[in-house]
């Protein structure tokens, strides 16, 4: 649609009421990330209509619903390791605490190192062969799930100095495209992506040419260099 900048409150209301067609709604969702006025108008509209939802008679909820939610929760990417909740009342000597903290830090570092070394012999959950428009193989993405993916570049790309190659996947239509990371120069790389659902067969992967530092919108904006669908290794 390319929404009317003179009627941002009107667009915001129609978005909040679900009256925009899906393509326009998707455009608003992308635009609101860089247009503070639109984002604020949407927030204001939500607050205006919210009492229609909060005044509703609550439905009876079964414990089963919570169990299904809890079973599907992924770990938070930056979850904070909790310290043991109890400690003896006399244990307030900083020396011991520092030693304990260092020991914990060392354990975590070892665990990360171990995970990294295990990663090298681990099988990817899915492999996607990325093709260009001409059907030529350009790259392969191996997604290990749990925030790790390896991209192997199999062709030369002409990347101007102010551009970078960005790797994307589409876990679901609801999530939209998610960046797995940037590739410095043109070589294979291991990417630390965000926490995502376990990669599935036929999940889309693609690489695009974006401005240096990555897409400003958090969504692919540049030309698609290659794309392909995930296959499960046998």
């Amino acid at each position: 649609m390319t929404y009317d900048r003179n009627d941002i409150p009107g667009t915001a209301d129609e978005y909040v009421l679900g009256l925009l067609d899906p393509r326009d709604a998707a455009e608003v969702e992308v635009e609101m990330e860089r247009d503070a006025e639109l984002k604020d108008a949407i927030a204001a509209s939500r607050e205006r209509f919210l009492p229609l939802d909060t005044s509703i008679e609550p439905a009876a909820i079964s414990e089963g619903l919570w169990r299904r939610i809890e079973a599907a929760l992924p770990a938070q990417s930056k979850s904070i390791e909790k310290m043991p909740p109890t400690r003896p009342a006399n244990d307030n000597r900083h020396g011991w605490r520092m030693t304990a903290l260092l020991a914990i830090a060392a354990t975590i570092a070892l665990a990360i190192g171990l995970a990294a070394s295990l990663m090298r012999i681990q099988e990817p959950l899915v492999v996607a062969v990325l093709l260009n428009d001409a059907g030529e193989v350009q790259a392969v993405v191996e997604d290990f799930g749990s925030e790790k993916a390896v991209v192997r570049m199999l062709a030369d790309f002409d990347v101007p100095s102010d551009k970078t190659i960005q790797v994307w996947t589409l876990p679901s239509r609801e999530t939209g495209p998610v960046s797995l990371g940037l590739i410095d120069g043109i070589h294979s790389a291991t990417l630390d992506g965000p926490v995502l659902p376990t990669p599935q067969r036929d999940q889309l992967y693609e690489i695009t040419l974006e401005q240096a530092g990555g897409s400003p919108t958090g969504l692919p904006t540049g030309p698609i260099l290659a794309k392909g669908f995930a296959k499960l290794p046998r």
Partner: protein
Amino acid sequence: MLTGHAPDDLDKALAACAKGDRTALRGIFDREAGRLVAVAERIVRRRDLAEEVVQDAFIRIWTHAHQYDPTRGSARGWIYAIVRNRALNLLRDGKREHTVEEVDALRESEQVNEVIAAWRKLDRNSLLHDCLGALDETKRHGILMAYVGGYSHGEIAGRLRIPLGTAKSWIRRGLASLRECMA
């Protein structure tokens, strides 16, 4: 225009969720899940689909809690918007087409009445109640059918027996009057 609000328990719960605290998510569930399922059911019209919506929404609340920005609206508005968007997406994916076929005409008209009744359940002293009440009935019904029931412009035009273009412009004008009244 920023929507100022005092930080409340839901703000804190979202911040705790972002740090990986599952009991905070459970707290949000205990407080809001009953209403959220009811809100989703008004839109998708089936309890099983409504629970599916709320289940997916809670996963999203968990994975996106770090993106919630208290300077841009209330935590409650953010949480309800996630559920509403999931429910509306389910409609767009066409699941309601199927359910509408199962529903007879009587039940259909009951649902329209339920949607309109949402206005009557509002706090009578609230600005939203008064400002909706100040609109012509057709505009009020159109806005309520869209927000409460998730009806599209076409569905609203059909049920109010007015041309599509008229429905669109009436709703747009109704929304503008509402903003002015509540400003």
